[in-house]
């Protein structure tokens, strides 16, 4: 505790003797200072002592005003109605004030009508006016702060105020999410969180995301963050079926499990990054933790909130392909180069050369329609609150034909507390149910951009698909090969707590989730090229489910005390985790259907063949603890530990210990820096070091087992499941972090820089084996060391806040660097083909394409080892970084009167796949982008593209095979700056709303992926892949939001 005073008013030489015993500090101060016509107020942990202002000259005019009355009141938290101790109550305009006690109550003498300022750390300040009538007992509720240093963050097993954090935590809130017309929480986080790199794998609705927090720690185990929704672990791995060959049933490849969270239900998403924040999750914290918290019920009369929007989406950028004339020229030139002539089955050479179809426009030139409606009600009394919500969303595609993603959600939350004054017992129940349905073609039609532009008419005069006697793989047939996915998720949780002794709370949280998915792909006989001679249509079926329960008993002890000049705050947490997961997946091929109409029914298949089955159980057990100690609101120490046991390891390697230490020093609280205030309004230095683990491996790797083989005669034989290794153990991840947080000009400028250095050792890999061993891999630990280091910057500024206009910005930048530090025996291992010591894991290693030899017109590759010949493996040593090198976002928010404009730019510097080196070479019977026109035609001319060829065995064909599969040309610069989101909101005027019994209602216009600045030549740099992929759409929506109360 410190005091701030003027030496002229309160001389330190003056000494008085007083004796107080068990008196409240405010009373002591008031008593001491009153005689000297001094008063005090308390702000940000400091007592400021000032002279009492003389009452205004006309103060005596009103009798009433002079009459001193004593008001009492209670300050509680808006969120959970708990009392807020040590909140400061100050009379506005004066410096006089008091503090609430442990039960949140205060007593304050006032003179007539007064405005009170109520402040407490972690809450937005509040002003209330007290009338001059006989004051009653005031009930004041403070809203938890959601931005800035006083923001309350959700952390592991609790909450913390940003100011007091020792670890690295970022958050986005419901407000950020509501500005974006998205269906998946991950999409809403893109560009907004430092250290979190989220890339969409396809722009199709319901697609999956690649998520990496602070780089790739593991060579081959999972790199997914650990997701927790309301305390319940949420699966990060999709239930979508992918066969051995990696082909999935639907065009979106796989569904993100997080689709099954309704974004409208989300209150906040907190991202825990460093050891201090994540070590308490032990083995699951290595890749960071993402905590999703849903909206809780509010006290007060029931109110309803409705939000509706609708809009359209389109492909923002298409690639120009060759027209018929250019295409046929390419083909003819290819045959001429190869010294060949088109045969009878080079059908495209015989088709009508006057036809022209822009297949990309045909396939992805449409418009997607988006519709979203959400409603919820909440309310409650002092001791019971509820919230209920429901939502529906529909999003169609830009494909021809009717394909759409639909999602419906309901949620319920109820919280109760015991009727005693301190609400010692509490219970919170929550249940969310989300179901979705995705109807898509079975393949992404974007790849059909390469169909010959002179292809025959798609339908004959009777409207029947034209196969041109089997010679034409009709792209429109793909509209009939439909994929339907239905999935749903139930997530229920309960938290029960009781304060058994003052400061000691026992608590148990329990959760259950069950996720189910059914996938069907139908291939009607009318969609199959008759030359393939299918007797009937066929279908593929897959279903899967994951169910999981978790129980976490905890004890929390909290104490604040004063000793001498120092104040201490201690928080101790201890708990246990019991968790069990079951996962089962099956897939079948159904054949021999008598009618296309029956294809969606598994039981109508004449023959049902099992394609695959997964059936796993996972059990997890842990004990964890945390000690958080804060001294004088200035020095903070945080210790966490966990002992984990997981069934994913063999009996001798199941248990491991993890832990971390974090510390922070709020140096702006130091006396000797006070002079800099308010220029330097906040300064904190923090650091942490600890160890986390990674158990994202498949189950049972240690078991020596056989599975059922395909049928032989009437028997099913057995085949070995895997090469097994009973001895592998945990992957360890050591994390070191330092951070500096600064606030300037009364926190109008907040600057934040983090540096981290994470090292992953004992790498747990599915060690790639030569085929001669009979299996592709074996699970084992590698003595390899991978480091991830980087800087993260955040600058949040309130640029202008004047009257009715305000402008604030937020800039974030992440610069991750990944390195394979050490890999003993790399040279003689199977990993030599991909990795190099000292280089990142995301690196391409192979041949370096020099360009086109002007003499021969064929690609040439660099002779890396200078032995005058280009051979494998000696010359396949060129290295090129792939993946993301730098990323961030820049957000600006403007407010003027009733208008608000939010603009978010996302930028990513990366190398990604070049679609120009897809598996079809220029000259074969597939269309190409116009950039192939710059090809070699005659000796002596330098060109970017080699000569056309239609023969994979020609010198140019063989060179292309190297270029597309093993050369650094596979990757090119795919950096981009994107206007990710723009949101214009108009707050409807209160006087209009009043008539309709509405409150706080808005009209909004939002744009997503509005434009992209990039040098990447393909459709979209984010979803760049070896084949062109459905891009994230440019969408524009208009919506309304109403609050009824």
């Amino acid at each position, binding site marked *: 505790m410190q005091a701030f005073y003027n030496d002229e008013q309160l001389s330190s030489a003056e000494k008085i003797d007083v004796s107080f015993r068990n008196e409240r500090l405010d009373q002591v101060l008031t008593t001491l200072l009153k005689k000297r016509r001094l008063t005090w107020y308390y702000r940000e942990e400091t007592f400021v002592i000032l002279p009492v202002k003389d009452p205004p000259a006309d103060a005596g005019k009103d009798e009433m005003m002079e009459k001193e009355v004593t008001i009492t009141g209670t300050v509680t938290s808006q969120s959970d109605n708990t009392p807020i101790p040590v909140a400061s109550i100050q009379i506005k305009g004066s410096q006089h004030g008091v503090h609430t006690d442990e039960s949140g109550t205060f007593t304050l003498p006032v003179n007539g009508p007064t405005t009170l300022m109520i402040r407490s750390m972690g809450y937005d300040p509040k002003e209330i006016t007290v009338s001059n009538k006989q004051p009653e007992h005031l009930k004041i509720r403070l809203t938890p702060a959601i931005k800035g240093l006083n923001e309350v963050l959700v952390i592991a097993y609790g909450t913390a105020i940003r100011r007091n954090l020792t670890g690295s935590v970022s958050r986005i809130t419901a407000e950020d999410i509501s500005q974006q017309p998205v269906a998946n929480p991950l999409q809403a986080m893109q560009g907004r969180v430092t250290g979190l790199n989220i890339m969409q794998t396809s722009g199709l609705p319901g697609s999956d995301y690649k998520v990496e927090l602070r780089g790739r720690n593991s060579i081959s185990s999972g790199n997914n963050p650990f997701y927790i929704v309301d305390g319940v672990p949420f699966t990060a791995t999709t239930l979508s079926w992918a066969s051995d060959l990696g082909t999935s049933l639907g065009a979106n490849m796989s569904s993100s499990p997080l689709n099954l969270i309704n974004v409208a239900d989300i209150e906040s998403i907190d991202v825990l990054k460093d050891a201090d924040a994540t070590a308490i999750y032990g083995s699951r914290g290595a890749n960071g933790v993402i905590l999703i918290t849903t909206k809780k019920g509010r006290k007060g009369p029931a109110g309803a909130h409705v939000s509706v929007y609708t809009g359209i989406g389109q492909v923002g950028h298409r690639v120009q392909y060759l027209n018929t004339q250019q295409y046929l020229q390419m083909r003819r030139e290819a045959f001429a180069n190869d010294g060949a002539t088109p*045969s*009878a*089955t080079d*059908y495209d050479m015989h088709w009508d050369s006057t036809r022209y179809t822009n297949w990309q426009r045909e396939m992805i030139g449409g418009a997607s329609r988006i519709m979203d409606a959400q409603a919820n009600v909440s309310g409650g009394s002092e001791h019971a609150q509820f919230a209920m919500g429901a939502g529906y969303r529909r999003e169609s595609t830009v494909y021809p034909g009717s394909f759409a993603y639909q999602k419906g959600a309901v949620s319920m939350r109820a919280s109760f507390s015991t009727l005693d004054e301190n609400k010692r017992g509490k219970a919170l129940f929550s249940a969310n149910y989300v179901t979705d349905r995705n109807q898509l073609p079975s393949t992404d039609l974007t790849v059909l951009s390469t169909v010959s532009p002179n292809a025959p008419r798609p339908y004959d005069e009777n409207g029947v698909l034209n196969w041109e*006697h*089997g010679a034409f793989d009709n792209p429109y047939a793909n509209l009939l090969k439909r994929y339907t996915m239905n999935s749903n998720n139930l997530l229920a949780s309960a938290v029960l707590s009781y304060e058994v002794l003052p400061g000691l709370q026992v608590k148990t949280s329990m959760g259950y989730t069950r996720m189910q998915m059914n996938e069907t792909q139908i291939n009607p006989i009318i969609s199959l090229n008759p*030359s*393939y*001679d299918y007797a009937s249509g066929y279908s593929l079926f897959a279903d899967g489910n994951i169910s999981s329960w978790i129980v976490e008993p905890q004890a929390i002890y909290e*104490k604040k*005390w004063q*000793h001498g000049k120092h104040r201490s705050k*201690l928080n*101790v947490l*201890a*708990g*246990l985790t019991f968790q069990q997961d079951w996962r089962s997946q099956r897939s079948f091929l159904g054949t021999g259907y008598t009618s296309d109409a029956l294809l969606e029914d598994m039981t109508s298949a*004449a023959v049902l*063949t099992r394609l695959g089955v997964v059936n*796993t159980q996972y059990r997890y*057990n842990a004990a964890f*603890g945390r000690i958080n*100690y804060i001294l004088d609101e200035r020095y903070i120490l945080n210790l966490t530990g966990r002992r984990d*046991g*997981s*069934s994913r390891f063999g*009996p001798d390697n199941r*248990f491991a210990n993890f832990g971390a230490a974090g510390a922070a020093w709020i140096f702006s609280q130091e006396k000797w820096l006070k002079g800099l205030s308010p220029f330097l309004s906040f300064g904190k230095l923090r650091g942490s070091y600890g160890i986390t683990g990674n158990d994202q491996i498949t189950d049972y790797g240690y078991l*020596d*087992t*056989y*599975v*059922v*083989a*395909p049928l*032989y*005669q009437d028997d099913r*034989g*057995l*085949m*070995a499941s895997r090469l097994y290794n009973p001895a592998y153990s945990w992957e360890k991840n050591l994390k070191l972090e330092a951070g500096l947080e600064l606030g300037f000009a009364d926190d109008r400028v907040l600057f934040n820089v983090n540096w981290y250095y994470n090292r992953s050792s004992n790498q747990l890999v599915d060690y790639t*084996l030569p*085929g*001669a*061993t*009979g299996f*592709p891999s*074996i699970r084992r630990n590698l003595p390899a060391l991978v480091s991830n280091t980087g800087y993260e910057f955040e600058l949040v500024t309130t640029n202008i806040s004047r009257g009715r206009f305000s402008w604030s910005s937020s800039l974030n930048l992440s610069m991750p660097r990944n390195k394979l530090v050490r890999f003993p025996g790399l040279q*003689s291992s*199977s990993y*030599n*083909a991909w990795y190099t010591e000292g280089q990142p894991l995301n690196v391409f290693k192979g041949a370096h394409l020099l360009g086109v030899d002007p003499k021969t017109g064929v690609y040439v590759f660099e002779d890396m080892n200078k032995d005058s010949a280009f*051979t*494998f493996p000696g010359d396949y040593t060129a290295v090129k970084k792939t993946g993301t090198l730098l990323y961030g976002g820049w957000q600006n928010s403007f407010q003027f009167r009733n208008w608000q404009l939010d603009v978010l730019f996302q930028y990513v510097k990366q190398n990604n796949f070049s679609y120009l080196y897809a598996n079809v070479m220029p000259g074969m019977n597939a269309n190409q982008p116009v950039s192939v026109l710059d090809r070699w035609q005659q000796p002596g001319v330098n060109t970017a593209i080699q000569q056309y060829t239609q023969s*994979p*065995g020609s010198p140019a*064909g*063989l060179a292309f095979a190297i270029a597309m*599969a*093993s050369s650094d040309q596979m990757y090119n610069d795919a950096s981009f700056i994107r206007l990710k989101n723009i949101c214009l909101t108009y707050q409807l005027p209160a006087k209009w709303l009043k008539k309709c019994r509405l409150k706080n209602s808005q009209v909004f216009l939002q744009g997503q992926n509005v434009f992209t600045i990039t040098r990447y030549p393909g459709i979209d740099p984010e979803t760049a892949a070896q084949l062109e992929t459905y891009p994230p759409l440019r969408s524009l929506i208009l919506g309304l939001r109403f609050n009824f109360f």
Partner: protein
Amino acid sequence: MSAIQHNMKKAGLLVCWLFIISSCTKFVEIDPPKTETIVGPKVFTNDVDATGAVIGVYGEMIHSSGFAGGYTQSITFLSALSADELTNYSGQSVPRQFYENAISVNNAAIERSLWNEGYRYIYAANRVLRGLQTSSGVSAATKSQLIGEAQFIRAFCHFYLVNLFGAVPLITSTDYEVNMIKPRTSVDSVYKQIIADLRNAQSLLRNDYVDGQKVRPNKATATAFLARVYLYRKDWANAGQQASLLINDPAYRLNDTLNEVFLQNSAEAIWQLVPNMPTYNTWEGANFILTAAPAVSSVNATALSPELLAAFEPGDLRRTNWVDSITVDTNQYFFPYKYKVKRSDYLTEYSMVLRLAEQYLIRAEARAQRGNFLGARSDLNMLRRRAGLPPAIANTLAAMLRAITHERQVELFTEWGHRWLDLKRTNTAAAVLSHIKPAWKNTAVLYPLPQNELAKNPLLGAQNEGY
């Protein structure tokens, strides 16, 4: 400060206590998955499961589109493309590279369907051998049959690997630490092991077939394959001797009617695999039989080559019974018609691996090489008579060998790479193929090792010449 220490101590004790109680390991013990069966207590302890570990290999082999399956990435198909048996119409690079004898080191079929798949079956065989070594509970009769089958499988797969790729790692262990750094074994040493395995299998396998159908190897199967191995090793005496064992075995005879040869359990079948893909019979039938012009994708994308069609003598019944054609827009496409069923819900044909006709050809060659032209002609004539052709008349070694090569070409076409391996083993590939394959190089007789394999096992050394 003492208060803090006191509290810290309390908290520390609480945490420690929690740690101790959670160290009970019971909770994290789980049952094995319901879909898997644990080896230790189960597989090699009883006849049924141990047998399952062997027939699982056949089930996988015939299910696959690669190696032994007969489909678009099988030995049968790919090596027929490499030889002069098929004309390719597919635009896809995997078949085209085989067809043009210019195979990329990254060719997916080389890696996945020939190399990796072959070694997968070898692993399974080694696994059975290891399991049975220490097992108890498997009856002696079953044990000897299963060891024989496993050794046969191991020899069979090594044979194709060594012929397609040259020197390859010889794998006789299940220890991945050994196998992952195994250098190439010389061709001679691989053959030595193949012969030892087959000899051993011959002594262990039953005379009759398990279950009566010719779908699991018996003694004759090992003998038939051994005859071929000796032929490839130019060990004429042993080749002739082994072939004779089969020719003299009353259990086998040539089918009189060509159209019955490829039916299930036909008289001349020695070993067949039972198809297990619903709505199909054999993959060969599904892929070779054309009902439209050849496709540009990977399936139904070939027709018989003009060279093979020209090789048939006039009046050869095999030309009329085992070849069929389809005419599309005045273009006539011929295709192999040994298997008659393209698709059916009922099984009538099994995929032929070994049949008696080959044994006659082996013995004819062995006899010719040893100067017994009369015997050689009589063996050839067994097949020529069935094909409606006049007896062979060759009477010099060179003429005799030409006649045998010709007979092998028209008898064994599009079966198991016979033509490709014959061209290779008789050093005639260059002479025959160079003028019909523009990109031909003499080094093309060996396929390249998968580039990924060379990368994963640096001890494999250099790539095959010419790649």
